[in-house]
């Protein structure tokens, strides 16, 4: 009976890439139909910076900011917004909803594995974060004259490790939350924690030293972004901690993740 089900080789080859592309297309379409998250993730950091940048006093260099202007000082913190909106809110809520509605299970009843859905969702959210980050840096540098990141490689690494850590935590939330609502709840709390420690709610100069110190190691690790953008480079210890969090959280998520 096996010969009846074996498809010609070219067809099998085609059928491996085609479903993934179709899935990516379909998910992108759905992603764009929910413009709030997308816009929030992409535009909010740049918009906040633009709002602050419109205040003349905040464009003057000041002692408290280590001789930097406030916009320059604050810009790295704002990067945490896109990373966390998509990483710990959109990603886990999306995956948990798919699981709750039996969509992942429906996928596992087709030749395509539900793992493909997870990968596509992950990539979509990552691409959105990357867009948000690029836009934010572009606005900062292009409109408000903030210096371009001084250590581009360190900046890229900070982005990679920091985003990796936040997304891994997002996966972990999706893995342990029994229902989509719970995922959203946990995601919101985690989001606020990341924003607080990144200095989004209160700029770092208003925070006690110890909080700032801890914040350097809370994903996405804005300390490393700051170091690479306006300082002397990303702190390798911070980068290593983010990478470690990314690996451990992903591993734990993989262990506990349920497809149904």
């Amino acid at each position, binding site marked *: *009976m096996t010969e009846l*089900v074996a498809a010609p080789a070219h067809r099998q080859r*085609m059928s491996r890439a085609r479903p993934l592309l179709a899935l990516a297309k379909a998910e992108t379409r759905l992603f764009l139909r*929910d413009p709030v998250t997308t816009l929030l993730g992409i535009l909010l950091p740049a918009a906040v910076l633009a709002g602050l940048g419109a205040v003349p006093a905040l464009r003057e260099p000041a002692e408290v900011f280590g001789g930097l202007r406030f916009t320059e000082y604050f810009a790295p913190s704002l990067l945490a917004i896109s990373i966390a909106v998509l990483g710990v809110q959109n990603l886990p809520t999306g995956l948990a909803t798919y699981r709750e509605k039996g*969509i992942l299970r429906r996928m596992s*009843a*087709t030749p395509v594995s539900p793992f493909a859905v997870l990968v596509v969702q992950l990539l979509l959210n990552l691409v959105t974060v990357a867009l948000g980050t690029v836009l934010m840096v572009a606005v900062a540098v292009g409109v408000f004259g903030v210096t371009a990141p001084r250590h581009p490689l360190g900046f890229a690494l900070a982005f990679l490790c920091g985003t990796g850590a936040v997304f891994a935590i997002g996966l972990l939330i999706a893995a342990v939350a029994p229902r989509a609502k719970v995922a959203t709840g946990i995601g919101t709390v985690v989001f606020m924690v990341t924003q607080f420690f990144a200095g989004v709610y209160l700029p770092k100069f208003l925070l006690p030293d110890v909080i700032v110190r801890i914040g350097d190691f809370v994903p996405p690790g804005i300390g490393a972004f700051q170091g690479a953008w306006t300082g002397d480079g990303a702190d390798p210890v911070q980068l290593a901690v983010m990478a470690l969090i990314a690996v451990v959280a992903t591993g734990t998520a993989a262990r506990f993740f349920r497809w149904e």
Partner: protein
Amino acid sequence: MPVIEVHELHKRYRDHVAVHDVSFAVEQGEIFGILGPNGAGKTTTVECIEGLRSPDGGSISVLGLHPLRDRVELRRVLGIQLQASELPEKMRVGEAVELFASFYPDPADAGELIERWGLGPKRKTAFAALSGGQKQRLSIVLALVGNPRVAILDELTTGLDPQARRDTWAAIEQIRDSGVTVVLVTHFMEEAERLCDRIAVIDAGHVVALDTPAGLVASLPGAQRLRFRPSAPFDDAVLTALPEVSSVRRTGRTVEVTGSGELLHVVTTELARHQVVAIDLRLDQATLDDAFVALTGHAAEI
């Protein structure tokens, strides 16, 4: 060679055994029904066949493939309709069908399938805006879009209104006529009786009967039931002596006789010999419902 062979399937969950010992074979081109009360192990059985669950014992072969080892190959030839599964709210009918079509090496024409199942006008409608019947039809379309050789449909018509249910039945016959073997899980007697070529009745994790719908009914000891008022008194023994009669009961003045074969003929002849006329005589044929109750000890429709 059977299309599906299930041999001594056993599956337990943490605290209870869902399937004790289930064996059956589904033949090419038939509509095979799996009938049983809720919680009998029907869905667990088909989920093992589909490779969505791993059995704790027994063996399953579908078109010669192993559900778990040959996962991908099996899914290319198996159309699956799950009992409760949704799609993303904002995904549109046409998009869903085309997406699923892309998963298969030799899919059916998405547009044609959508039309055939009456979803043409809903092609651009988001999943969340569909009615229950439309969602159900969409899930059938998704099960068929890969041009499967076997389709497994679980509680297909649950939640449909009577007209939609009838339409769905006609459509399932169409699927079979196009050469697809159909496995139908249901707890609706009428559906099983109307559609299935053969039925496995599952109760508490066991196959308690496997036959055609007519065969299941005929196997009942009291497949036929006569009711009448006798014109004159007579002794029950007159009738119980007949080989066709299995029981005689009296309720008030009404006599109820159950049995099989030429029951009507032998009973009236025998009564006539004793100068008794059967007044208000009625003959009831047993239905699959009765067979089901006799086999499982439960009432059917839940």
